[in-house]
C-alpha cells in the first residue's frame, strides 16, 4: 500500500516538476539555433514562481467560469499525467482509466480553457477559442485512432498494459502500422502543444494567436497555473509518444533501477523535444486555413495505421 502511495507521489513529482524543464530546454535550444543566448533552461520555473506571487487583474465581465478554468485545467492535466507510464511501465492510476480517459481529461481541460477565453467577452479570446476548437476537432480523432492502433496490437486500451506489451518486443516500432501511428501522433503533438507550423508560442501579434489569445486576460497565479498546465500537457503527450513507441528502459514496478529509467526517460524526452524544435526552426507558420489540411494528413496516417494493423 505504501509502495503504491510512494509511486503515486513520485509520478506527481515527475509530472509537476519535470514539465517546465522540457519547455525551458525547447526554448533554449530554439534560441541557440537562432544564434541567440536565450533565457536559460530554468526560466519557466522562475516564471511560474514569479507569477504565483503576483496579484491578479480579473475582468469585470468575467463569471465563475473564468476563475474555475485554471483549476480545472491544472487538475485534469495532472490526472492525465498520472494515467500514463513515465519511468515505470505501471502508471500509478492506470487501474482507473486507459487512453480514452487521458484523451477526455485533456479535452475537458481544453473545453474549459475555450470557455474561459470566451467568458471575458474580449474579441481576441473569442478568436482564440474558435481557432482552438477548430483545430482540436480534427486533432482529437487523429490522436484517438493512432492510439487505438497501438492498443489493438496490445489488446488493451490501458496504457500500462500497452507499454508492457511493447517492452516485450522492443523492435516492434519498426512495424509499418507503428511508424504510421507515430508520424500521426507527432503531428498531433505539434498541433496540441501549439508549436510552429500550427501556432507560434512566442508571438506578440494577438491577431495570429491561438492558445495565447485564449489566455490573454489571465494574469498572476491563474496564469501560472495555465502556463504550468500547458507544460504538463506537453509532457503528457510527449511521454505518450516516447513510452508507447520506444519503451526501452521502462522499469517494471518501482525500485532502485527506476532511477536509471528516469535518466533514460529524460533523454528520450529531450530527443523528442529537439526534433520538435528542429521542425519549428526550419518552417514558417502555416496559413491558418492550411492547418486543418495538415491535421487531415495526421488523421489519414492514423487511419491507415489502424487498417494496416489488420493487414500485417
Amino acid at each position, binding site marked *: 500500500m505504501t509502495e503504491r502511495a510512494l509511486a503515486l507521489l513520485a509520478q506527481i513529482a515527475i509530472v509537476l516538476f519535470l514539465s517546465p524543464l522540457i519547455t525551458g530546454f525547447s526554448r533554449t535550444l530554439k534560441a541557440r539555433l537562432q544564434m541567440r543566448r536565450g533565457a536559460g533552461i530554468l526560466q519557466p520555473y522562475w516564471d511560474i514562481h514569479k507569477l504565483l506571487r503576483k496579484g491578479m487583474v480579473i475582468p469585470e465581465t468575467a463569471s465563475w467560469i473564468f476563475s474555475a478554468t485554471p483549476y480545472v485545467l491544472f487538475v485534469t492535466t495532472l490526472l492525465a499525467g498520472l494515467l500514463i507510464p513515465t519511468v515505470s511501465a505501471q502508471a500509478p492510476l492506470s487501474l482507473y482509466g486507459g487512453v480514452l480517459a487521458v484523451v477526455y481529461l485533456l479535452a475537458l481541460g481544453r473545453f474549459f480553457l475555450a470557455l474561459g477565453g470566451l467568458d471575458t467577452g474580449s474579441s481576441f479570446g473569442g478568436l482564440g477559442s474558435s481557432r482552438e476548437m477548430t483545430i482540436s476537432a480534427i486533432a482529437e480523432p487523429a490522436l484517438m485512432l493512432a492510439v487505438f492502433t497501438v492498443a489493438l496490437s496490445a489488446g488493451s486500451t490501458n496504457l500500462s498494459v500497452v507499454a508492457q506489451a511493447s517492452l516485450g518486443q522492443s523492435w516492434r516500432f519498426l512495424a509499418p502500422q507503428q511508424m504510421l501511428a507515430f508520424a500521426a501522433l507527432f503531428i498531433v503533438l505539434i498541433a496540441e502543444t501549439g508549436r510552429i507550423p500550427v501556432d507560434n508560442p512566442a508571438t506578440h*501579434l494577438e491577431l495570429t494567436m491561438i492558445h495565447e489569445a485564449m489566455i490573454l486576460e489571465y494574469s498572476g497565479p491563474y496564469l501560472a497555473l495555465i502556463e504550468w498546465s500547458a507544460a504538463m500537457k506537453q509532457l503528457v503527450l510527449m511521454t505518450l509518444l516516447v513510452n508507447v513507441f520506444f519503451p526501452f528502459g521502462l522499469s517494471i514496478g518501482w525500485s532502485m533501477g527506476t532511477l536509471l529509467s528516469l535518466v533514460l526517460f529524460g533523454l528520450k524526452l529531450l530527443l523528442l523535444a529537439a526534433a520538435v524544435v528542429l521542425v519549428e526552426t526550419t518552417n514558417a507558420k502555416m496559413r491558418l486555413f492550411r492547418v486543418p489540411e495538415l491535421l487531415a494528413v495526421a488523421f489519414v496516417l492514423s487511419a491507415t495505421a489502424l487498417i494496416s494493423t489488420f493487414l500485417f
Partner: protein
Amino acid sequence: MITKAGSFDGLLARGVNLFERWREQGDAEIYADLPSNDARPVTAFLRDNGCRLAAVFAEDRTAAESRYNLYYVFEHPHDRRYLLVRAPVPSDHAAFPSLAVEIPAVNWQEREIQDWFGLVAENHPNPRRVALHDNWPDVHPLRKSFPIDTVLPPFEGERHVYRPTLGEGVFQIPVGPVHAGIIEPGHFNFAVAGEPILYLQLRMFYVHKGIEKRFEQLPVHRAVFLAESISGDSSFSHGAAFCQAIEQAAGVEIPEHAARIRTILLELERMYNHVGDIGAIATDVGFVIANAHASRLRELILRLNEELTGSRLLRGMICPGGVRWNWYPDQIEECVRVLKIFDREFEDLMGIIETSDSTRDRLERTGILDPDKARDLGVVGVAGRASGIDRDVRRDHPYAAYGSVTIEVPVYQEGDVLRRMHVRVDEIRQSLNVIRAVESGLRPGPHCVTMPPLPPDRCALGAVEGWRGEILHWIRTGPGNQLERCKIKDPSLNNWPALVEAVQGNIVPDFPVINKSFNLSYSGTDR
C-alpha cells in the same frame, strides 16, 4: 531627350486657357496660377495626359493677400520638374470644390485642409474629421490667427462613429490604438465573417504633434532637427528633403562631395530599413531564424551609421548647404569593408528565405493590392512599385548625386506581400551598387557651403525618395531666416488607405504580415 510634347511645356501650351499665368522656377518647379478655386478642369486635363497628382495642400495668405492658396502638385511621367498649380481661395468664402470623387488619393489630404485651415471641401464624399479627431473643438490650428501657444480646455466632443457591422455571423474586432509591442497608436476596426476580413476601418492621427505649425516658429538652422524627427526611421530622408527645399529657396548649390556623402547616407538608411523589414516579414509568418539573421545585418549597418555620422539613425549629419562634417579616409574604408560583409551575408540570408517553401506559401498571393487601385489611391514607393507603379524620385527627379548613377526601378505587377518583399530585396542590391559607384568617385573637397540669409517670400519644393517612398517638403520663406509655411508629405499618408484595400478578403491572422509588408509610419502620417 525630352521632347516638348513629352513634358509640362507642351501641356501648358495646350491648356493655356485653363491657367492665368505660369512661370518656371529654377530647373525643378513650375508654378501655375488658376483664376479661381476650381481645380477640377485642370486636374482632369492633366490627369488625362498621364500626369499624377502627388499632393494637395494649403497655405494661409490672409494677412498678405487676404486669401488662402491651395497647391496641387503634379508629376509628369517624362518631366523632371514638378508642376505646382496654385488656386486662390478668398478668405470671405473659405471653400473649394473637392476632387476626392475623381481622385481618391486626395481624400485624406483634402480633409486635412478642412481640419487645419477650415476650408470646406465641397461635395467631398466623406467630409468627416480626419486629422483632428471628432472630439476636438472647432479650431483650425494652421491658420495664422491661431497662436501656437493656445491652450485648449479639456474637450469631450462627439465620438467617432464607425460604419456599422451588420449581418449574421459578422463581428467587429477592434484593435488598438494601443498595441502590443513598441509601435505607435492607430486604430484598426475589422469586420469579419469568421476569419475572412470583410472590410477594415482605419483611424490614424492619434499623435498629431503640430509639426507643420512648429516649423513656422523656428529659425531655419534649428528647423532641420525638427525635420529629422518627423519620422524616426526616415530621419535622413526627411532632413534631406527639407534641406533641399531650403537650398532651392536660397539659390545655393551644394558641393559635389557633400552630394555624394548625402547619397551614401540616403542609401544606408534605405538598406537598414529594408533589411529590417525583410526580417520582420519573416517573423510575422513565424520564420524566426531569418529574422535573427536580418536583425544582425541591420545592426551591422546601424553601427556603420554611427561610425560615419555619430548617430545610429543618421541624425544631426545633414545641414542646409551640405553635411555637417567631412569623412576621414579610414571612415570611408570602414564603409567599404562593412558593405562587403553585408553583401555576402545578405545573399546568404536570401538563400535561407528563398529556399523556404513554407515562407513562400505564406507570402505569395497574400494581401494583393491591385495595380488599378494602387493608381487610384496614389500609392507611392515600395508598395507602389510592387503594384506596377513605375515611379522613383531618384530616377525621375534626380537630387544629391543620383544624376550620376543609373537607377533601375524594380516593378512588379502582382502586388502581394511577396512582391513587396522582392522590391526591398532588389533595392538593397541596387543600393549596394549605388554606394559603390558614388564612393569610388569620392574626392577630397568641401563638405558644406555657408548659407546666405534666406530671402523672404520664396517658395521651394524638396523631393526625396525615402525608403518608404516619395517625401515632399514645400516651404515658403518668411522674414528673419524663418519659414512662413512648411508642408510635409510623408509617403505613409498615401499608403494607409491602400492597406485597407490590400487586406480585404484575407484572413485575420494574415493581417500582421500584410501590414508589415507596407510598414507605414504613424508619426509621419500624423505629424
